[in-house]
């Protein structure tokens, strides 16, 4: 990619983690994790919630220190004490919850701790905007760098985060669930960008629950379960089914054991209604939503992002108003 990173022979990894262990209050969260990342490679990291993905990445990003184990970056010991250490050595982190400042401009967000200076404590604004515009072009975002981040959509903000990661000329970018709040089109833009970055020699660690994306995008896949690596190999060795069974530690057909609803046979369902929602409507938010929740039931509400799921829940809890409809609760 650049002069700092000459053609690496494939047998020397860019990053190597060996036997990483971490405990919180006596609970072993990571039990000796080995991971290897090569240049120009996207490694997918999958696992259930609590498997240790975030802890591992926080150690890599300098937010946490491991109890035991070594990290090697280009075969040199790598021991970041703070996120800025990791950044300086070329490891950038794009967090799931965006770490942007909506009250600052795009350019200021990108260069918050590395402003080009015009002598002393002053910011060279023209240079700042030129450099920011370059990075925005790289990530394919055609917006003025002077624009405030608060005026951007979720997808645009994600691209600004990546522009910020690129501003430190990284060798490795960690992306933690970057597509959570993106639309399909924004996700496609992000993946195209990631492929371009890989062609330039950058390594990436991609964390996602969307296994289809991981299979489509990644060269290698690492599966974590309960703080241990339970699967590690080339993409071709994996299918979504195999990843799931590794993640949960059971065969797929045992994933959803059949349960019988308690009390269902003994009680009249009409009498057991705990919550009844009739035609809840709030303009532009939800329209004519009705359902009944019975005793002993778990009621799932599904839908796309923005379909009104959370808004409906807020209305049920009295946090938001509704225009018409009824919410009935049994005593």
């Amino acid at each position, binding site marked *: 990619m650049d002069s700092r990173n000459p053609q690496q022979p494939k047998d020397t990894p860019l990053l190597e983690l060996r036997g990483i262990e971490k405990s919180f209050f006596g609970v072993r969260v990571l039990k000796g994790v080995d991971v290897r990342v090569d240049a120009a490679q996207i490694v997918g990291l999958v696992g259930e919630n609590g498997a240790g993905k975030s802890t591992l990445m926080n150690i890599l990003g300098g*937010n946490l220190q491991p109890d035991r184990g070594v990290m090697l970056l280009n075969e040199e010991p790598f021991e970041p004490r*703070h*996120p*800025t250490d990791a*950044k300086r050595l070329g490891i950038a982190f794009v967090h799931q919850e965006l*770490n*942007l*400042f*909506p*009250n*600052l401009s795009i350019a*200021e967000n990108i260069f*918050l*701790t590395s*402003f080009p*200076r015009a002598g002393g*404590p*002053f*910011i060279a*604004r023209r240079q700042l905007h030129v450099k920011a515009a370059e990075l925005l072009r790289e990530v394919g975002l055609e917006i003025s760098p002077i624009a405030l981040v*608060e005026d951007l*959509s*979720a997808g645009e903000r994600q691209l600004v985060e990546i522009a910020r990661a690129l501003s430190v000329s990284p060798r490795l970018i960690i992306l933690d669930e970057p597509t959570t*709040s993106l*639309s399909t089109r924004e996700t496609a833009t992000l993946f195209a960008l990631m492929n371009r970055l890989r062609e330039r020699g950058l390594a990436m660690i991609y964390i996602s629950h969307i296994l289809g994306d991981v299979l489509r995008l990644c060269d290698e896949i690492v599966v974590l379960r309960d703080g241990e690596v339970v699967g590690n190999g080339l993409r071709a060795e994996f299918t979504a089914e195999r990843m799931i069974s590794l993640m949960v530690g059971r065969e797929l057909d045992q994933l959803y054991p059949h349960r019988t609803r308690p009390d269902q046979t003994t009680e009249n369902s009409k009498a057991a209604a705990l919550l009844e929602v009739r035609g809840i409507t709030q*303009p*532009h*938010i939800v329209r004519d939503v009705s359902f009944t929740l019975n005793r002993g039931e778990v009621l799932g509400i599904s839908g*796309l*992002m*923005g*379909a*009104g799921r959370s*808004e409906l829940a807020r209305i049920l809890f009295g946090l938001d108003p509704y225009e018409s409809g009824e919410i009935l609760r049994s005593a």
Partner: protein
Amino acid sequence: MTATSDPGARPANKFAAVFASEYLVLGLCVFYFLAFAPFTEGFASRGNFSNILITLLPLFILAIGQTVVLITAGIDLSMTSTIALTSVVGGMVMSGENGWLSNNPTAMPVAIIAMLVVGALVGLLNGFAVTVLRMPAFIVTLTTMMFVGGFAVWLTKSKNIGGLPESFLAIGNQLWLALPLTLTVAIVAHVMLSRSLFGRWLYAVGHNSRTAYVSGVPVTGVTCSAYVVSGVCAALASVLLTADAQTASPVLGRNMLLDVIGATVIGGTSLFGGKGKVLWTFFGVLFLKLIDNSLNLRNLADWDIRIVKGGVILVAAMLDALRNRLAVRGS
């Protein structure tokens, strides 16, 4: 994100844009002036303008210091006590009656430097307690207000100090000295806030200090410095006020606290942090002074003026809360 949630958000943003307009308060000033001038004798006279200006300058300097602290999502209630203490310290150094440097030609510059140093020290104390001890700014500065104010009275046994040098008194009644001093403070503060690293970091810290820390912003130093700036501003205002009063007094400026915070908030600086500008604060100071002055000219009683000013500040704080809510919903 989707068609269902967008139409609801748009009008809210437009609504917010009107309130967020930079020149809203300036417009209100002009409107207020034009509306009251025909009915208030002497409001539009030349003598009254210079009267407004001379009382506006120290308030403006104080409000600039308050703006810097409010941007970090803090508050400085100790400013008025700092005025009193620095006034007393200045008087003790330079008074011709029994000052330490009585009738010495260096008395005046040394006194002013001593005032600034004392102001900075009070700010440092506040900043230390807020950052290192992690105490809430409200409690910290409330207690330093009492402590510093009491200390000023104790130092002087509750007496005013007269006999200040002529060269010092000139700063108070000569507009050509006070005006450039205030303008310099305003310009330095404006450039610092909008074009220096420290300034941009203030906004980042004020929006989210945790995120700022993770991004590598030296949060402790930045926040602490904001209180030092505020203390120095209080000392500078004290120079103007002491010279204008012609005596150093341990109760100087004791009625100004609500004016300072009120003017800053009227200008549009947010009590929630992350937002504020020197220009906005100027508009806020101007508006509050116009109200103050016009009601005085109409011979309204002190409590009437307080009711009006309190009401205006309350409305400004309510608008701030409203703007903040709209911003949270928008994102």
